[in-house]
């Protein structure tokens, strides 16, 4: 399969090289700061020349991100980021294209572009900042807000059912899905590097905290006292173990996951499900991605990573194929094609 790789950087960059001179204007305590720091930590590790990075965004708090990264950046319109990113990548496949979205941007107004980018498997990286609320418009519920959430626009609690971003990724035949949290900078940076390496649309969901309008939305997972029991860090090829001493694990009972404890009722590590991120069949990925407190830990890390032909690769192949059989090679050829006649 032909792939278009970005040429390697000749210089070893540092975090500082990727920080822009603009004043960062998120609220104090916003989870976005940590994501930005993790990103500027990850980018120098990729060995890609700085000028080949493009950060694209739509509208929302998260969408200000490109202004703060010292690369090429395009702050576009609400929800349409994936479409801009698609045009940019197809116009110049050598670029490393990152697309920053909030939950409203990606899953409400931009839901269509989001699923179609994943379906096409174009080689871009989508980072979804999921704080389950509209921040920039000052606190309305979003498509990921849990049912019952009281917000400015739902004074009696939202009566809608929320989307899980992971369900959409699987439903759209996405090839890469990872989940991380804004309180774990190391994990974020690792996952951003993994996302960059993946060929195809990488979708990283960051559970991000909005201190102003939806504080502690993810506390069931991220709070210090919940960390051990409600975070399951998945790694391809490793058993799904969690808890303080990694004594708890996920076992498959028929088609249902269940939490078991090593040493209890004769449970050994052999009973524990081993994570296979590379399985084409997404059944277990979906199962893992849907686990959530209070009955389950939340899976963090790369949940799905499958190699499939990317849109840009398919396009390059098609061009080569058409070149073999094409009858016309320039506009002049085309103008003279078919029937022409001369008036003398």
């Amino acid at each position, binding site marked *: 399969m032909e792939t278009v790789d970005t040429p390697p950087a000749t210089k070893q960059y540092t975090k500082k090289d990727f920080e*822009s001179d*603009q004043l960062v204007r998120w609220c104090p305590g916003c989870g976005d700061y940590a994501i930005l720091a993790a990103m500027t930590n990850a980018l120098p590790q990729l060995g890609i*020349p*700085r*000028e*080949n*990075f*493009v950060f*694209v965004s739509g*509208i929302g708090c998260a969408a200000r991100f*490109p*202004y703060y990264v*010292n*690369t*090429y*950046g*395009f*702050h*576009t*319109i609400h929800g*349409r980021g*994936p*479409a*801009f*990113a*698609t*045009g*940019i*990548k*197809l*116009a*110049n496949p*050598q*670029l490393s294209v990152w697309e920053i979205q909030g939950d409203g941007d990606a899953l409400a107004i931009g839901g*269509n*572009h989001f699923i*179609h980018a994943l379906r096409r498997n174009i080689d871009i990286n989508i980072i979804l900042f999921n704080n389950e609320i509209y921040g920039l418009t000052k606190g309305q519920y979003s498509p990921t807000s849990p049912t019952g959430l009281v917000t400015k626009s739902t004074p009696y609690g939202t009566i809608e059912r929320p989307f899980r971003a992971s369900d959409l990724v699987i439903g759209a035949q996405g090839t890469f899905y990872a989940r991380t949290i804004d309180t774990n900078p190391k994990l974020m940076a690792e996952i951003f590097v993994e996302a960059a390496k993946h060929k195809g649309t990488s979708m990283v969901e960051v559970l991000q905290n909005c201190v102003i309008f939806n504080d502690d939305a993810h506390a069931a997972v991220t709070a210090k006292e919940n960390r051990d029991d409600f975070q399951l860090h998945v790694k391809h090829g490793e058993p799904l173990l969690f808890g303080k001493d990694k004594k708890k694990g996920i076992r498959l009972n028929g088609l249902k996951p269940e939490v078991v404890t090593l040493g209890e009722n004769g449970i050994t590590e052999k009973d524990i499900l081993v994570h296979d991120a590379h399985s084409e069949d997404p059944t277990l990925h979906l199962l893992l991605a849907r686990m959530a407190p209070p009955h389950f830990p939340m899976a963090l890390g790369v949940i799905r990573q499958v190699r499939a032909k990317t849109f840009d690769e398919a*396009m390059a192949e*098609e*061009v080569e194929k*058409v*070149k073999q059989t*094409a009858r*016309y*090679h*320039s*506009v*002049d050829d*085309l*103008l*003279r094609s*078919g*029937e*022409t*006649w*001369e*008036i*003398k």
Partner: protein
Amino acid sequence: MDVATNGKKIEQELEKVVIRFAGDSGDGMQLTGSQFSFTSAILGNDLATFPDFPAEIRAPQGTLEGVSGFQVQIGKIDIYTPGDQADVLVAMNPAALKSNLQFVRRGGNIIIDSDAFTDRNIEKAGFPTNPLEDGTLSDYNVVEAPISSLTKSALEGLQLDNKSIMRSKNMFALGMMYWLFDRSMRETENYIDSKFRKTPALAEGNKRALHAGYHYAETIEALPSRYRVPAAKIEKGVYRHISGNTATAWGLMAAAEKAGKKLFLGSYPITPASDILHELSRYKNMGVITLQAEDEIAAVCSAIGASYAGQIGATTSSGPGIALKSEAINLAVMAEVPVVIIDVQRGGPSTGLPTKTEQADVNIAVFGRNSESPLIVIAASTPSNCFDTAYLAVKLAVEHMTPVIMLSDGYLANGSEPWKFPKLADLPEIRINHPKTPQNGSFYPYLRDSETLVRPWAIPGTPGLEHRIGGLEKQDVTGNVSYDPKNHEKMVHLRAEKIARVANYIPEQSVIGSGDAQTLVVGWGGTFGALFTAVTELQRSGVRVDFAHFSFLNPLPRNTSDLLRRYKKILVCELNMGQFATLLRGRTAHPQIVSYNKVQGQPFLVSELKEAILKHVNEI
């Protein structure tokens, strides 16, 4: 018409003639019409065509809703329109007759497939009684030809099913027309051979039907005369046939090739623009990238993304799609990124008349975005002019770093004409200058050229020029986000002035006429042919009237105000409720700008234009 004597038939020479083919959507009338046109073009006639078909792909057989028509005017003189009224109508069934009779000149010839005039079909078409018998057609010369049954017997012995046989009857009708107008069948035979290369029986069937029609016409006494339309005196050179949509596609490609860029088309299927997407999707080996996007919005956004990344971004659509693209177009206005938006106008509002023509998108093109949003709007005037206009749209977009909306319409898109095509080398240069290095160590994405006010087009991948752009208001020169009130006002003025200065780079508006008339007829876009014909015919008969046809709607040519001031009355003729007239009133303050409008989903007729113009000239 005189009856022939001694088996010899009379020949009449005509300056021009209008022929209309009409039948069920599945009868192949578009193909029949284009074959007749193509053969005539090769014989040296000038011509213009007008396909007139329903939005439904195959409405129920025999119904009025399912009738598809194709009109062509051929001439030994220059032809600018498909003609007001048909001299000959070929009607394949009662419904086709019913819906097309209104387009036939009194005294004209009507050729019908008499086999199709069954009681059931007559009733389906809504005739109270049989129109062949009740005097409906007494003002016409009617030729009742049993086309279906003759086609059937001509194809006897071939291994073809009834459906295939019946689908060849359009060739029988075409054969009759070839005899009637003394045209060779060779081009169509070549076409049939190539189209049915893999199915020789179908090729043979179609050719047999064609010949059978030709010989039938020669034999019957109902066609006592045949017509000769000699070659036109047209400019020397090599010609081809071109439709507006194909010309648009090729114009975009020509500009990209000239600029040394890839062409990126982001598009979503919509009538009547889809053919541009179809055409461009064929040339992937020539640096053309086509993305059939998930919706109209993604189509334009991906095109803007491609332009931002340094290629030629374009999107094609029609009114409803343009409405969806407004927000993204405004981003390109704000960020000052080039993009070409092709609007093949159709009847509206809303879904309106998808396959019918209209010119009612002036307002949305010039004004249809939030806030102060200046951009370039240009319009194509003929099918082949779509090539030049699309080329120019790209040139203006990249040289002035702005969105350009090109207005085409359903009439131009599907209409076709002979075209003396250019060579790429003869087309104007497209100047693109991507900055390579920062000036004095820094890069300022909104530092403008002092003449044009155009900002630099720095593309991702260029070391040292990393910068951020977007839809937020930006500080003059640096492009950093700025909410400063005075800066905003300055930027609004700069964006307006940048587009206003484009007038320095486009031709001044010309006038057709002596220049001493008191009335100036103004048109724009796809009505050129009808207006030109109407005005020049009036001028030849001694009427004092001048004509200015606009290609540039925004900015207007810089002499527009001065030009209009020379006339007492400005008569703006357009296929809408007066949108360009309103624009001219706002831009020029001329005291007497009046309108002649038509909104029927149909192009202007020369006759109605002449009448309207004459009335206005005489009122002065």
